[in-house]
């Protein structure tokens, strides 16, 4: 899977948290060979204690006990397999308890896979020995070229089939482990549903928080100013001398301009209309202009973003910048927006005192916004700073 197409949040589609890089081939080969040894263990286990317990398994009275005994040993073998997959293949499986029957089923299937793998590996070794003999014959001139060609052709085909078998068995081994240890399709669905429910609740919470903030903005800002303005006018009307009235009117005039500015600011904080008409870059320019701290903006998008992503990116920047301006004591903020058409990464960094609280209302709101788009939000804010907030969003 190429990097660009991989979802940001792998909800275990592969049943594992994918390693950043697959382990190197020699290591995986060692794991596969070890798998052959564990398969032999499995064979022994089924042959000796399995055979001994066989009659008791058939007897209804003792069936339960015998099965439990047999499954107990199989469980240890399964744990060994889990360790092997983890160490040599980088699979990370959550610890979970399967039923005795499921463990037995897995160990049986896994044993056969391992035995087959050993057999196919044996064939490969055998083929290599034959090829060696043939090559030696050619060198010692006991084999003629006419004899060599059909042999080599046949050997090539067999080699291909053999390698194909090894690859397939390796995949089968991985799949068996995944199906047994990893979450089932149903669990994956449930996990996804939980995720969606949580993000939905988060979105609602975020919406309410926003509304509260808007109400506060209107009440504490615009409304107070309007009341003060009306009061000025009322005082002007009551005043005895024209000079006093004149002064109050002048004050009221200035106040009315301030009310307008305030109203514009509030409207902008609610939703920057530039986002719709002029796009993200212009809207972010507005954030930079409003910011009291020097702000450097780096903006590199290959293609325009879909609307929801654009809005989320905008709010990540504006919220992070507002937070930085309010709490961090930073003297410089840098904002980077980069996108390649598949995903966009938004980074806001300030050189302030750090210690931002990821559970604070602002950052929680941001997380909800990003979660709703299946994105990722990283907050790094060690004490003494610097604070870096990064959002990764998918454009699909």
């Amino acid at each position: 899977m190429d990097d660009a197409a991989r979802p940001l949040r792998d909800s275990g589609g592969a049943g594992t948290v994918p390693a950043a890089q697959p382990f190197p081939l020699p290591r995986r080969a060692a794991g596969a060979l070890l798998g052959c040894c564990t398969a032999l263990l499995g064979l022994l286990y089924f042959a000796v204690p399995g055979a001994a317990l066989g009659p008791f398994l058939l007897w209804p009275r003792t069936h339960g006990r015998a099965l439990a005994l047999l499954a107990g040993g199989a469980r240890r073998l399964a744990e060994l397999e889990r360790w092997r997959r983890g160490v040599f293949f980088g699979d990370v499986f959550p610890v979970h308890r399967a039923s005795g029957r499921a463990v037995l089923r897995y160990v049986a299937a896994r044993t056969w896979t391992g035995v087959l793998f050993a057999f196919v590996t044996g064939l490969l070794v055998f083929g290599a020995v034959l090829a060696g003999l043939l090559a030696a014959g050619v060198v010692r001139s006991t084999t003629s070229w006419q004899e060599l060609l059909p042999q080599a052709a046949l050997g090539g085909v067999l080699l291909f089939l053999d390698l194909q078998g090894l690859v397939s068995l390796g995949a089968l081994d991985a799949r068996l482990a995944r199906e047994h240890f990893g979450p089932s399709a149903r669990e994956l669905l449930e996990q996804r549903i939980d995720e969606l429910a949580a993000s939905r609740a988060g979105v609602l919470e975020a919406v309410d928080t926003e509304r509260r903030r808007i109400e506060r903005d209107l009440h504490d800002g615009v409304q107070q100013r309007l009341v003060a303005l009306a009061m000025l006018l009322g005082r002007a009307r009551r005043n005895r001398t024209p000079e006093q009235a004149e002064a109050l009117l002048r004050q009221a005039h200035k106040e009315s301009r301030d009310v307008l500015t305030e109203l514009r600011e509030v409207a902008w904080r609610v939703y920057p209309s530039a986002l719709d008409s002029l796009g993200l870059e212009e809207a972010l320019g507005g954030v930079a202009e409003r910011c009291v701290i020097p702000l450097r903006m780096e903006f590199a998008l290959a293609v325009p973003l879909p609307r929801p992503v654009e809005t989320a990116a905008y709010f990540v920047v504006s919220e992070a910048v507002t937070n930085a301006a309010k709490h961090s004591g930073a003297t410089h903020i840098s904002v980077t927006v980069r996108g390649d058409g598949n995903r966009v990464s938004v980074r806001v960094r300030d050189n302030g005192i750090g210690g931002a609280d990821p559970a604070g209302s602002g950052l929680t709101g941001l997380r909800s916004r990003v979660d709703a788009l299946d994105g990722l939000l990283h907050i790094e804010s060690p004490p003494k700073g610097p604070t870096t907030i990064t959002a990764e969003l998918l454009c699909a």
Partner: protein
Amino acid sequence: MLAEDSTLLREGLVRLLAEEGHDVLAAVGDGTSLVREAEARTPDLVVVDIRMPPTHTDEGLRAALDIRERWPAVGVLVLSQHVERTYAARLLSGGAERVGYLLKDRVAQVDEFLDALERIRAGGVVLDPEVVRQLVLRSTHSDPLAGLTPRERTVLQELAQGRTNAAIAQRLHLSLSSVEKHLGSVFDKLELPSTTEYSRRVLAVLHYLKS
């Protein structure tokens, strides 16, 4: 004394009151400081914004109730963001004298605001016309107010704003005796014991409407 968290408005109020010849003893930005100030120098009257820091809910109201309880002689005018019947009721529940509940925007109508201050100082009850309107206009089937004539309603509205019978008569251009007649029938319809103390009657009306 003033408690109002918006600096702008606080300053405006201080100026306005000073211009009108009132002596502003203190102007603070939260409920706790107001109570502290009131303790230091008992004012005639406090004006309190309900919504103040830290929680921006009902700090002002709690401060006002506290002051009412400790110094009953102090007049209290509470300014509210919206008409909140619960707040009005809480404010009036401790005996309705020298108390007022106004919408914050009413401050902008300077004359009305100053008039309200005077009426509270004189021992009256002032309710914002809007509060009264909302209380009076609630007419459900169980609402005895539904049985009032429009004229009686108007009279009740005026009464609820703490005006004396004479003032009501003057405002509605009625004779004093017809105001008394209207009020009498209002009290009958609302099944309220008739007393001469109008603030108690307002309170009774309020309590009745609240139920």
